[in-house]
Every structure is written in structure tokens, then in C-alpha cells.
């Protein structure tokens, strides 16, 4: 009985993880510029891989494997935002423009002493 419930739970987690990963990749394709794409990769991607790893931790039934899988989740949570941040920062430093329909860029406004692109 408990095994059946666990199996269903594992299946649901895997399915949810896969769907989030799919949404993350669709987001990478559809969103307009690199900054918006990083949103999709960092959030939906992290949750997708995290859910898959948690499913693995439950399914393994072995404490050593489970802790390793959960450590993987923690490392995802620590590294995904840093890589997204660094990509966005590098792109911005190189002057990669925001999407043309963006509302504004307060950082560039400050860097150029408010000559252009002032928001609000």
C-alpha cells in the first residue's frame, strides 16, 4: 500500500519536473531577450531538475543515495541563480540591449548620467 503511494508520488514528481523543464526550454525559445530568457532558465529549470532529483531520492529507498540527491537539489539552488546573474551581468556590461519593447533600464540610465532611457 505504502509502496503504491510512493510510486504514484514519484511518478507525479517526475512528470511535474519534466513539464517544468519543458516549460523552461519553451521559455528560452519564446522570450524576447537574454535577460528575460534567464528568468525561464533559472526558475523553471531549477524547479524542474529539483523535482526530478527529489523523485529520485524517494525512489532510491537508500539513505546515502537520497542525501546525495538532496545535496544535488541544494547545489542547484545555490548555483542556478549565480550563473543566471553572471550571464545577465556580462551581457549588460557588454552593452547587450534590452528588448525594444522593454519599459526602461535604470542601470543604463545611471551609467550614462541619465542622458537616455530614463524610466519613471
Amino acid at each position, binding site marked *: 500500500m505504502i509502496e503504491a503511494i510512493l510510486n504514484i508520488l514519484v511518478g507525479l514528481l517526475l512528470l511535474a519536473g519534466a513539464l517544468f523543464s519543458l516549460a523552461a526550454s519553451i521559455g528560452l525559445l519564446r522570450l524576447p531577450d537574454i535577460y528575460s530568457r534567464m*528568468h525561464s532558465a533559472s*526558475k*523553471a529549470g*531549477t524547479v524542474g531538475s529539483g523535482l526530478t532529483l527529489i523523485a529520485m531520492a524517494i525512489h532510491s529507498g537508500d539513505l546515502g543515495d537520497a542525501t546525495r540527491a538532496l545535496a544535488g537539489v541544494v547545489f542547484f539552488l545555490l548555483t542556478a541563480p549565480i550563473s543566471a546573474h553572471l550571464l*545577465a551581468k556580462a551581457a549588460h556590461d557588454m552593452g547587450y540591449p534590452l528588448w525594444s519593447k522593454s*519599459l*526602461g533600464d535604470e542601470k543604463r540610465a545611471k551609467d550614462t548620467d541619465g542622458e537616455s532611457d530614463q524610466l*519613471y
Partner: protein
Amino acid sequence: MNLQLMNILLALAWAAVTGSFTLANLIFGFVLGALVMYFIREQVGSLGYFRRLWRIGTLMLVFLRELLFSAWRVAALVLTPRLDVQPGIFAYPLRVRSDMQITLLANMITLTPGTLSVDISEDHSTLWVHALDCSDPEATRQDIARMFERRIMEAFE
């Protein structure tokens, strides 16, 4: 003595006495140690330590909830046929000061709904945040301050 260190030493002592240094036993020892320290909270002044543990715990829970919510929002957004985004970069004035707190806040901002930390100013007073929906930056600023910055300050002051 440093209370965190004491808790870790108690966990190690527990593992040594029971003769098993597995992760589960160490965690169990840590919980037992925390319980013992809670019993003598008046004598060693460890009440503040528990308040901090509790605050770090709630911070983690709030963060996980926001992360799930955030992934859901992004997934729903990219799957709608009409892609309705109004992105932009806004400045967020930082109140937290230490590097560790700023890093934590920047990471949390990146993993929560519609926001992504892009850069920090030279003097560490401003964080630039990219938002998928930048139509109301003031509300987003207040959300960040209320949800995370205040809690981070409480947990790590």
C-alpha cells in the same frame, strides 16, 4: 562559548557515544543537542540562538514557497499564446550591508517571481534587478523588502 559550535560538538559527541558517524545519526545528534540546549536556555542564554534558528527556518520555507510559485508563473507565462511581458531593469536600494546577506538576497531575488538580479553598484548600495513585469517597480521593491530583506536582516543580525 559560541552556541552553534556547542551544538555541533554535542552532535559529534552523540555520534562518538553511539559509535556511528552516518549523516542521519549526526543530524539526530544535532537535534538532540539543540533540545538539550533548549532545556538550559535560561542558564546559557541560548534563547536568541533558537529565535535565530527559527527565523532561518521560516526564511527557507518562505523562499521554497516563492520558488515554486515563481516557476509556476514563468511556466504559465511562456505557455500562453500571447506572450505578455513588459520587462525592464529597476534599481533596488539595499538596506542589508554584509556581503553574505547581499549574496543571499540577490540569489533569492533571482529565484522568485519575475525578478532577476543583474548587477550591484560599486559602493554596494544598489542592486539592479531585471523584472519580467516592470510596470510597477515600486510594488516589486516593497515585495522584496517585506518578503526577504527584513527576514534576512532578522535572521543574520
